[in-house]
């Protein structure tokens, strides 16, 4: 089990019974606390297993040391600080078949954070897209 603060069962989640209740009902936990993490739920599939195992936890593992990936039966649960980015041109090369960003979205099950596409790249970020950062269109040819 991951010891990262981004792990599925990090912090209070490791506690049970009264210890959990004490922290859960603690005064400090009666309001929300701003978080710069993002969560991604990827439905398990042939392609997404490759994305998770060979790209996010493989060739690009060093890009974001805060990324945690956990197996939740039907889906991969990912949490990272800042952002997670997937370049579908790279995925396409790895899979050996055409694979667009919309093919990726076929199996992207949930997002907590601001997710968007631009060209063949999928991004989920803690940035406030449209408020702090402008959302871009595909550049004209």
């Amino acid at each position, binding site marked *: 089990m991951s010891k990262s603060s981004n792990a599925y069962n990090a912090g209070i989640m490791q506690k049970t019974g009264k210890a959990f209740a004490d922290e859960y009902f603690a005064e400090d936990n009666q309001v*929300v606390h*701003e*978080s710069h993490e993002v969560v991604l739920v990827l439905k398990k599939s042939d392609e997404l297993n490759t994305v998770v195992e060979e790209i996010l936890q493989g060739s690009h593992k060093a890009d974001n040391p805060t990324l945690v990936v956990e197996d939740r039966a039907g889906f991969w649960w990912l949490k990272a600080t800042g952002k997670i980015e997937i370049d579908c041109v790279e995925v396409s090369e790895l899979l050996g078949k055409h694979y667009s960003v919309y093919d990726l979205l076929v199996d992207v099950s949930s997002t907590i954070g601001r997710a*968007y596409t631009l060209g063949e790249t999928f991004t989920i970020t803690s940035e406030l897209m*449209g408020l702090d950062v402008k*959302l871009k269109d595909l550049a004209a040819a």
Partner: protein
Amino acid sequence: MAISTATKAATDALAANPAPVSVGAQEVHRWMQSFTWDFDKNRTKYSTKYKMANDTKEQFKLIAKEYARMESVKDERQFGSLQDVLTRVDAANRVHPKWNESMKVISNFLEVGEYNAIAATGMLWDSATAPEQKNGYLGQVLDEIRHTNQCAYINYYFAKQGQDAAGHNDARRTRAIGPLWKGMKRVFSDGFISGDAVECSINLQLVGEACFTNPLIVAVTEWASANGDEMTPTVFLSIETDELRHMANGYQTVVSIANDEAASKYLNTDLNNAFWTQQKYFTPVLGMMFEYGSHFKVEPWVKTWNRWVYEDWGGIWIGRLGKYGVESPRSLRDAKKDAYWAHHDLFLIAYALWPTGFFRLSLPTQEEAEWYEANYPGWYDMYGKVYDEWRARGCEDPSSGFLPIQWFIENNHPIYIDRVSQVPFCPSYCKGESTLRVLEFNGKKHSFSDQWGERMWLSEPERYECQNIFEQYEGRELSDVIAEGFGVRSDGKTLISQPHTNKDGKLWTLDDIKRINCVFSDPLKAL
């Protein structure tokens, strides 16, 4: 460029480079924002107190045809799995019976939410001014049709192939009998479609979808898998692949009003009302379905809630918007209390009223009781001992003459319906955030369970006057109500609902209920 020059240039270009060319979705999408035009009558038919900006963007840049292609690939995968391998391995008959029953409710009630969201996003499509935003809502309209069909497909599949079709096969007709239905309509139906358009968006997208679909549609799949159900993960995880665009729509709704003065005046109240409205039903009902509707447990519901609702939705969505004036919902403290206890309170009532359901319920076993006590210290003294008493009085046996609702009457624990949320509550026997408040309006008494719903009522009582099941059924005998609502199986006498899922247990009939002579009464009349 002059016309003749352009033609020559095209010819020259072709000669130099005859490579095939096509057009991509995002190349078309980048012109979407210019598709509209100004004219005098161009205003929404659904008023909102907010002013939506006309330059709001759509985060995924889809056009109609690429949307269809993407969705079609999703469908090939899920329906291929269902019709092929899952049928071949007889997967529907390898699901724990308790979970088979839960899916009667979860899938059908989610279908209602999805169905109403078609209309809700039709309203938002109308009220948005930016074409990209309209396009995002349109995509959602189609998604919600998809989800309605998908949820139906789960019930259709379980009915056709599973171990107990009753309830799966006719939920759309029998669901209106019991105490969970009207609350579901408040949160999942009318709450999405009737009101200020932006208020509805906050209910549907910013809270309902961005917050509660994660436990309802994602986390539920882990519970399903643990209990042998691979149909639900196949369909629900595919549903959720559309929800991320809906969450983006909800976020863009906030972006579109962020610079509007009205936002600073109204947004936090609307957000708090939406959060309370949604949690008031989802928190207890989902917790009940997960924990009491399963044999194998994944984790305590309160942990699921703490992760998806409090830490991630609260921190990543609401917390991040703090700099734009969005505050932590004022009802959060009460919601957290509900997340710990309200599903236990609700199951006590749901089990007591089991004959009005369209599903079978089961009392907690000894090992489940130990699990509850370990995770919710104090559970046994409040709930476990009551279940032991009910079991000892033969509540599962049709010949016992005992319905658990009698226990509430004998012990002077009246069950009320909260007028605003339509959720039943027993103020004298509960640990969640419920206390009895009674107000009179239009010559009628109205009960409320909490300050947040009461405030909504006091502001706008005309929005929440819907009668409840006790008023509707008052004076009616229980078996008559069940028969009228088609709550029986195809033999015409055995109830769809049952108080157990034991495969060797006897099944209750209308006659068993009639012998008890249980007559509905409105508890408000006794006050």
